[in-house]
């Protein structure tokens, strides 16, 4: 709006200037015409003045002629004629200086001085002539004297006439010169100067218009830049808030700020936010990033960490306060997690060291038990002690299992992920537990739906351990299930024995074709307790990932355990069997491989699903 006002006012000014210049031009032309006319009038007057001088001179000559005639033959008629002439002459004299023409003439030559003195004399002469008698003999002489007395007047009039003539001649010459040099010249000059003025005005206007265009372009560029800046402010992930420092009223927020506090500027949460920021900042103008670090309760119980700066800013021509903050809650949480991880790593190292140190006394105990047993052997009645020694030895084995797991668990993850054949590793792991599964009457089948060239990335030994742990877990689940069901199934003892017999037969078959998928007459996953024990391992590739599923039919995992299955020491097993670290270690290893492991109850048992990134490239580096 200011821009429009600015553009209109020079237009008016320009129009005013143009009108004024045209008016001035017309006025100048008018003045010129007037002056020319006045000059013509003046010239006419001057000519008339010449006429006055001439007539006075003419009257003088006529008077002198009358004097001369009378001097020869004085007569009454002649006397009267002379009187008339004298009076005419007398009347002419004041006209030389006391008329329009005479006043003009008196500017050129002094007409009053030389003539006025004769006016009185002329009056006297008129009187004297009136008294003269034409019959008198002395009259002629008297007339001659009077005529001579008037001679100086004749000279004076002669001078005036000559000067008047000379002046008129001068004027006449100038006029002729003017006529020769066209009188339009000054007018043309006037026009030219007017045109110049107009041109200057037009040029100036043009330049002003160009300047105005420049200013407009600059203003457009400024507006575009402002628009861009606004877009940037809208896009930044930081919360940008402009608030009135006196009323705490918020005048501007960007989407991040809207998401943080409220999308409505009139929300009472905003003044509260501004006051909280001001209270936390301490100083009103601290541009340094991080000068503002505060906790803000978005709603009761939802407290977030904010970090940023507060500064004075000129916003829409008013001094305002600019608040820029970033929600650092996640960073804070990440920091806490890192700290926690570091703490866990330290704990892991400590646990590893402790496990190692524990192995020394365990070794000594183991040796001592062997020696004690040897010493006891020849003695009669030592059986109860031997049983105790056996228990000691078994407990040492248990402690060893725990320390082994702890050492594996506490091991730092390898930085480098090496490719290895997934199928190969799973088969090795299955092979490792095959004997135990046979002993426990469990049919283990591996269904490898991927080529041997499919690679996963990690440490193969550790990954094999993961599969082993999951398989052992399945095996133990059957034993737990068996213990649970022993009471219930006492009456069906006979049936069970038949089943076990069949199971052992299949076990023998499996020995010959250890890893072949299970085939058999019995349905693979019948109801628990009545079906044969089965664990199926399947490997599939889903896009860029490999999915390894281990499914048993051991009755599943209680829901409460399922949730914390991968936490250390969350075990359902008897203390003789489990350390409570196997699945926790499995999760740790899978996580190191950028994969996941989940457990769920499916059908008549539990299913563990391991998902890890897999690739078919670098097949030449297939692990041996």
């Amino acid at each position, binding site marked *: 709006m200011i821009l429009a006002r600015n553009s209109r006012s020079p237009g008016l000014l320009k129009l005013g200037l143009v009108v004024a210049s045209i008016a001035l031009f017309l006025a100048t032309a008018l003045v010129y015409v007037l002056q020319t006319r006045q000059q013509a009038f003046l010239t006419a007057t001057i000519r008339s003045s010449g006429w006055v001088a001439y007539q006075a001179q003419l009257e003088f000559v006529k008077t002198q002629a009358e004097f001369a005639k009378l001097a020869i033959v004085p007569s009454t008629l002649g006397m009267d004629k002379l009187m008339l002439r004298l009076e005419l002459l007398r009347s002419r004299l004041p006209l030389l200086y006391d008329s329009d023409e005479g006043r003009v003439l008196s500017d050129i030559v002094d007409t009053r001085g030389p003539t006025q003195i004769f006016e009185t004399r002329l009056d006297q002469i008129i009187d004297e002539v009136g008294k003269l008698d034409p019959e008198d003999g002395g009259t002629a002489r008297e007339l001659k004297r009077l005529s001579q007395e008037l001679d100086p007047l004749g000279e004076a009039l002669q001078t005036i006439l000559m000067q008047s003539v000379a002046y008129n001649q001068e004027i006449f010459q100038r006029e002729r010169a003017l006529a020769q040099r066209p009188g339009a010249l000054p007018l043309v000059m006037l026009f030219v100067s007017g045109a110049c003025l107009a041109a200057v005005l037009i040029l100036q206007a043009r330049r002003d218009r160009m300047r105005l265009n420049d200013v407009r372009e600059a203003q457009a560029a400024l507006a575009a830049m402002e628009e861009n800046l606004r877009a940037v402010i809208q896009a930044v992930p930081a919360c940008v808030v402009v608030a009135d420092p006196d009323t705490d009223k918020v005048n501007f927020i960007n989407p991040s700020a809207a998401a943080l506090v409220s999308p409505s500027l009139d929300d009472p949460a905003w003044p509260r936010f501004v006051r909280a920021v001001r209270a936390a900042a301490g100083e009103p103008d601290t541009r340094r990033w991080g000068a503002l670090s505060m906790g803000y309760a978005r709603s009761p119980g939802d407290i977030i960490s904010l970090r940023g700066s507060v500064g004075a800013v000129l916003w829409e021509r008013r001094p305002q306060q600019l608040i820029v903050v970033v929600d650092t809650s996640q960073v804070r949480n990440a920091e806490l997690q890192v700290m926690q991880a570091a703490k866990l790593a330290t704990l892991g190292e400590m646990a590893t060291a402790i496990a*190692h*140190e524990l*192995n*020394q006394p*365990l*070794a*000594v*105990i*183991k*040796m*001592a038990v*062997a*020696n004690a047993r*040897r*010493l006891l052997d020849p003695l009669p009645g030592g059986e109860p002690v031997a049983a105790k020694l056996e228990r000691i*030895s078994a407990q*040492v084995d248990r402690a*060893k299992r725990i320390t*082994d797991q702890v*050492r*594996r668990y506490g091991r730092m993850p390898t930085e480098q992920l090496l490719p290895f054949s997934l199928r190969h590793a799973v088969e090795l792991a299955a092979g490792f537990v095959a004997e135990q599964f046979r002993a426990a009457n469990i049919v283990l089948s591996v269904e490898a739906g991927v080529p041997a060239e499919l690679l996963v990335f990690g*440490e193969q*030994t550790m990954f094999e351990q993961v599969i082993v742990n999951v398989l052992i877990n399945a095996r133990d689940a059957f034993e737990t299930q068996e213990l649970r069901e022993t009471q219930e199934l006492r009456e069906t003892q006979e049936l069970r024995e038949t089943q076990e017999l069949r199971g052992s037969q299949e076990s023998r078959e499996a020995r010959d074709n250890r890893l072949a998928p299970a085939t058999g007459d019995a349905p693979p996953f019948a109801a628990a307790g009545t079906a044969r024990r089965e664990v199926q391992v399947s490997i599939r590739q889903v896009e860029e990932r490999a999915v390894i599923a281990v499914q048993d039919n051991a009755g599943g995992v209680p829901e409460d355990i399922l949730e914390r299955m991968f936490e250390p020491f969350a075990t359902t097993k008897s203390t003789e069997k489990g350390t409570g670290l196997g699945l926790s270690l499995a999760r740790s290893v899978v996580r190191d491989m950028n994969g996941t492991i989940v457990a769920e109850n499916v059908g008549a048992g539990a299913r563990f699903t391991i998902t890890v990134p897999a690739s078919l490239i670098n097949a030449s580096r297939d692990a041996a």
Partner: protein
Amino acid sequence: MNATRSMLICDDEEELAHELGEYFASLGWHVALAITAEEAIAQLRGGLAPQVLITDLRIGAVDGRQVVAEARALPPALCPALVIIITGHVMHNVTAADLDSDFLYVKPVDPTEVLDDIGSFLAGVAPPPA
């Protein structure tokens, strides 16, 4: 029992060395003990000539591997026929051969297992004189 067999046990864990030594001594072995690697090396150089060398790996300033190296460097008459390492450390992908030994056990180990392995090894490598 066969002809008298001899053994050098090197472990800074004194009780363990004693228990292990007692176990084999009770079976008729000549057992020498060393608590440090230096001691073990001195005994080996001094012409102890044990048939079996059992050593820990981390035993003070001088490593058990050095004891093994010293033993392997001895002239054939003094060189132990069998070198066994019993260590408290779990090392991934490390085999007995990597440490230039014949058997590698991780503590705690049952001495009967060690005895069985020694028996079968010596029976194969150096059949005792009839």
